[in-house]
């Protein structure tokens, strides 16, 4: 694979000026979280405002920094801030340090920008919850952790953010943990994430073992000297981490359940930001993956599988949030796929990540708005015809829908199309397999998103008796509008202009003109055609025919998709059941085996004692006998030894 990968200089210049405030990016939301969580009921009154102000302030700082970066040369845009020495033991030196560069800046803006919008939205969405303050506390915690994740200048600091977002996700999914299923979902998410974290841990350990360092600068600087086997191992472990965090196959099962959290959470964490951390990790680790083509191949395979997997699940879900979650999984599959392709895909992965952040967040918030109006119902078979009563929601959702299916001109079109193109780059079997997978994914995406859109906003009204849908208040709709604008135009702004590629080039490297297996124009046409087919199919199935209130039995595939392609069943039979069995048998073993052995020894001694005790019969003659025998034995021993 021809690359002109620039040995990136992530060891940025020391932070000065506005960049010396980088720590504030994290500290502000962290402060918010601390105040809101520790402050208790006293902060109820202003909690939501403080909670919103903090990410907003971070956003402002981020913006200022962004423009400051723009003012620099492309090569000088990486800025490091060393905070303090965190862990220092022997040669294991890890500093708490931040790295602001083009890549992290993308994320900073996405996180704080979209994050702020979602905070604002939540003010309205959570208005009636007595625990709103706590909710904002958790959200702020999330923002802080996420910012730490993307701003870290070493893998270990990244790891802190990495698990921090996992914690926030856990807390927010389980925000309504008085519902046992929600609590279970939260735990499931955390545990699945931990499996991924295992990978990240091991990856960091391999780095230290092989390279003696865990900082980005150190690792990337030494990567070209490391053996391919080591890099492959690191890469695969990083991929495992990404799979956990980004709900990629085979660790995808938690994402659907994670919809138990309040909808803004789904929008922020499980659509826009946290779940894309895996993509960030892989792209950030580009130098590692560049040295490990096998690992890259696996990344692509995982991406391809997941994008189809998610898409197929999405076609059968009736729960609007779960359908969106499946879609998220699928879209991230695209990004991972792109990230696995190497420099040819990096920029587009990030590009898609950004656009997806907008339109998917928008759609989630839209779904939240719908639920808000529909008494928190999520079954799309009970929706229908909402376009007339919730105009703003409908319109913003429309833009999101068009964006995700890749309607020409809208954001998704630019980003996804590029990924499909990139997937077709290369020689041999790969472009065909991965390119076609990406293409099919686009078609299926169009189908299920159209299905979702139509079932929700069009067709006859299938509402239950007690609902009286209404538009949401402005505090909720304004963020919707802003996100919709982003969904519409962000792609146009960044894609055709090549801005995103240029911006990221110093970090992820550049690639020359690549030849795709099929001409680009053919690919674009094919994509649009497939999308049209998908739309048409959905239109014919869900708008022309009435939607039954209960789901029909469906084909085997439908049923499988409805059950998430049996991922839970597989997990259950492969991991949970054996795990439970193992645990139970170990408990038994510990009681009877280990402890039993100890107690057995005690019982044996006791039994021996009891038996020997009986030898003391109380009869003098028995005693005399034992003495005589003893004397005889003594004499015998002495004769044996002495003569």
């Amino acid at each position, binding site marked *: 694979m021809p690359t002109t990968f620039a040995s990136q200089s992530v060891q940025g210049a020391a932070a000065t000026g506005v960049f010396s405030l980088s720590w504030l990016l994290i500290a502000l939301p962290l402060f918010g979280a601390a105040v809101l969580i520790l402050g208790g009921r006293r902060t109820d009154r202003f909690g939501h405002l403080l909670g919103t102000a903090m990410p907003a302030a971070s956003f402002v700082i981020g913006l200022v920094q962004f423009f400051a970066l723009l003012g620099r040369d492309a090569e000088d845009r990486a800025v490091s801030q060393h905070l303090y020495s965190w862990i220092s033991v022997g040669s294991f030196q890890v500093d708490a340090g931040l790295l602001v560069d083009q890549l992290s800046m993308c994320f900073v803006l996405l996180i704080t920008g979209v994050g702020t919008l979602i905070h604002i939205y939540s003010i309205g969405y959570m208005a009636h919850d007595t625990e709103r303050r706590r909710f904002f506390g958790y959200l702020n915690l999330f923002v802080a952790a996420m910012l730490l994740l993307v701003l870290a200048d070493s893998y270990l600091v990244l790891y802190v953010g990495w698990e921090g977002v996992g914690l926030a996700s856990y807390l927010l999914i389980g925000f309504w943990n008085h519902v046992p299923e929600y609590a279970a979902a939260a735990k499931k998410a955390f545990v699945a994430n931990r499996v991924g974290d295992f990978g990240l841990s091991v990856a960091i350990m391999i780095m230290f073992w092989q390279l003696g360092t865990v900082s980005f600068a150190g690792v990337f600087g030494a990567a070209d000297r490391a053996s391919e086997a080591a890099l492959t191992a690191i890469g695969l472990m990083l991929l495992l981490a990404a799979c956990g965090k980004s709900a990629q196959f085979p660790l995808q099962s938690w994402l659907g359940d994670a919809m138990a959290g309040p909808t803004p959470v789904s929008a922020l964490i499980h659509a826009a930001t946290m779940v894309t951390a895996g993509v960030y990790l892989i792209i950030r680790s580009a130098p590692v993956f560049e040295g490990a083509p096998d690992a890259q191949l696996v990344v692509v395979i995982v991406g391809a599988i997941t994008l189809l997997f998610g898409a197929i699940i999405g076609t059968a879900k009736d729960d609007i949030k779960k359908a969106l979650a499946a879609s998220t999984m699928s879209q991230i599959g695209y990004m991972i796929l792109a990230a696995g392709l190497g420099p040819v895909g990096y920029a587009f992965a990030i590009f898609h990540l950004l656009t997806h952040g907008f339109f998917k967040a928008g759609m989630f918030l839209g779904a939240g708005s719908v639920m808000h109006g529909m008494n928190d119902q999520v079954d799309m078979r009970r929706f229908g015809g909402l376009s007339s009563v919730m105009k703003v929601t409908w319109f913003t959702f429309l833009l999101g829908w068009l964006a995700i299916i890749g309607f020409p001109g809208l954001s998704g079109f630019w980003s996804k199309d590029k990924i499909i193109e990139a997937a077709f780059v290369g020689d041999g079997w790969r472009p065909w397999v991965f390119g076609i997978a990406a293409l099919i994914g686009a078609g299926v995406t169009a189908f299920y998103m159209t299905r979702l859109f139509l079932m929700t906003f069009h067709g006859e009204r299938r509402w239950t008796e007690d609902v009286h849908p209404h538009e949401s208040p402005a505090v909720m709709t304004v963020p919707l509008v802003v996100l919709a604008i982003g969904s519409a135009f962000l792609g146009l702004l960044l894609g055709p202009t090549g801005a995103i590629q240029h911006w990221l080039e110093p970090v992820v490297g550049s690639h020359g003109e690549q030849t795709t297996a099929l001409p680009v124009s053919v690919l674009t046409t094919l994509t649009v055609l497939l999308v049209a087919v998908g739309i048409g199919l959905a239109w014919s199935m869900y708008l022309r025919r009435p939607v039954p209130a209960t789901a029909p039995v469906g084909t085997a595939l439908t049923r499988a998709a409805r059950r998430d392609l049996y991922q839970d069943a597989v997990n259950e039979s492969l991991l949970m059941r054996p795990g439970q069995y193992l645990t139970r048998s170990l408990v038994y073993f510990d009681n009877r085996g280990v402890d039993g052995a100890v107690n057995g020894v005690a019982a044996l001694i006791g039994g021996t*004692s009891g038996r020997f005790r009986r030898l003391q019969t109380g009869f003098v003659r028995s005693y*005399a006998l034992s003495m005589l025998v003893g004397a005889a034995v*003594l*004499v015998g021993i*002495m004769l044996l030894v002495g003569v």
Partner: protein
Amino acid sequence: MNVVTLSAATFQTPSVEYRQLLPMLIVFGVALLGVLVEAFMGRTARQHVQLVLAVGGLVAAFVAVVGLAGHYGVAVMGAVAIDGPALFLQGTILVLAVPAVLAMAEPSLDRGGVFTSAGSSVPGSEHERVLTATGVTQTEVFPLTMFAIGGMLLFPAANDLLTMFVALEVLSLPLYLLCGLSRRRRLLSQEASLKYFLLGAFSSAFFLYGIALLYGYAGTVRLSGIAAAVSNGSGSDTLLVVGTALLAVGLLFKVGAAPFHSWTPDVYQGAPTPVTGFMAACTKVAAFGALMRVFYVGLGGLVWEWQPLIWAIAILTMVVGSVIAITQTDVKRMLAYSSIAHAGFILTGMVATDTVDARTGEILGVSSVLFYLLAYGFTTIGAFAVVTLVRDAGGEATHLSQWAGLAKRSPLVAAVFTLFLAAFAGIPLTSGFTGKFAVFSAAIAGGATPLVIVGVVMSAVAAFFYFRVVVLMFFSAPAPDGPAVAVPSALTTMTIALSAGVTVLLGVWPTQVLDLAAQASQFVR
């Protein structure tokens, strides 16, 4: 052949080094005085006079022992060896005897004292009842005890086997009698006496036969003579080894080592508790002294032959004592088995025969055993004294179930008993630990590591039953009609306090005593 011919013409008046014999002479003298007191004093005053006499005699004898420090040598025509171990052990016996005698004289726990009002009365008879009502007691126990102590003083100092045999009998006979003189549970007491006597006589016979064979081997019973014969290699080996074995039977019987231990539990349980304490402490000291003297001085040249024997006996003794004690239900019986186990531990120290500490010249095995005996003696006397305090209507409540929740009734007694048990178990900061450390380190230095490992494992087993008692006392709910803890007179109090004090002192600050034991570790040969 060292044929000694002493014709009447050449007979010379034997030299009698009275100063060297002074401790024994004092004790025997006091015993005789005690007999006279029995004969001529009125019944009422006897108890007090006897006590004062006995304690005074013991103290005087102890002073005499202290005065002898450093004056080593053989006395009375070589019959008695006054050397470090002998003096240390004599001193040990004397200081142990004081609290033991005090406990025997305890008047207030049982009306009339510890001992029966008349040994000759039939248990359960009218005669006994009448006598008991008068509150008299058999004060002959004091001279008897003094005779026993006299025998004990001679036993480890005896330099020929005949003297040793006589000493053995002198210490044994009074003990046989004392065992049978309990005030309560007289049937048990008499049974203990009978068993002790019959088995003791039986073992004496072995001991004596051993002497006979050694005499046959060496032509003399003087330890130095035997040692010389052994080193010359003259005489029949089989006579020597069999004689050694049989001699060992008699001595091991007295120390209560398996398989010659079977009398111990029965006798310890049946005997009056203060006598049990006295026996367990002082007899053991004397017997180990004699054992060491015979084996080190007389049979030192035979060490490779008898060492395996001691190994085997030590292991067997530790195992039997520790293991069987686990299932005991009577506290005195449990302590008896514990004393068997301790005999095993001490034997472990004996294995380190000739490991001489290069720095101090001390013989590790000897000095560790000396220390252990002192430490163990005090703990034992104290523990048995505590046993006398726990009483119900039938006298001492020795069944373990009756000890449940004792800490509730009397935290102090429970705490003190726990201290003694901890010392038995070898918990640090008690004398038991220092002792164990001493013998085990001597044994390892002597190359007996496996023996130490057995010892360590058996200590763990032993800890189980010691702490079972602690659990009972502290953690169990007391039985509603359980025994009370009687308040003793100053005598028993002093016994317990002294024992506890020494137990702690030897655990925390054993330096001086260790020094003393180290200095006293060389036998006169």
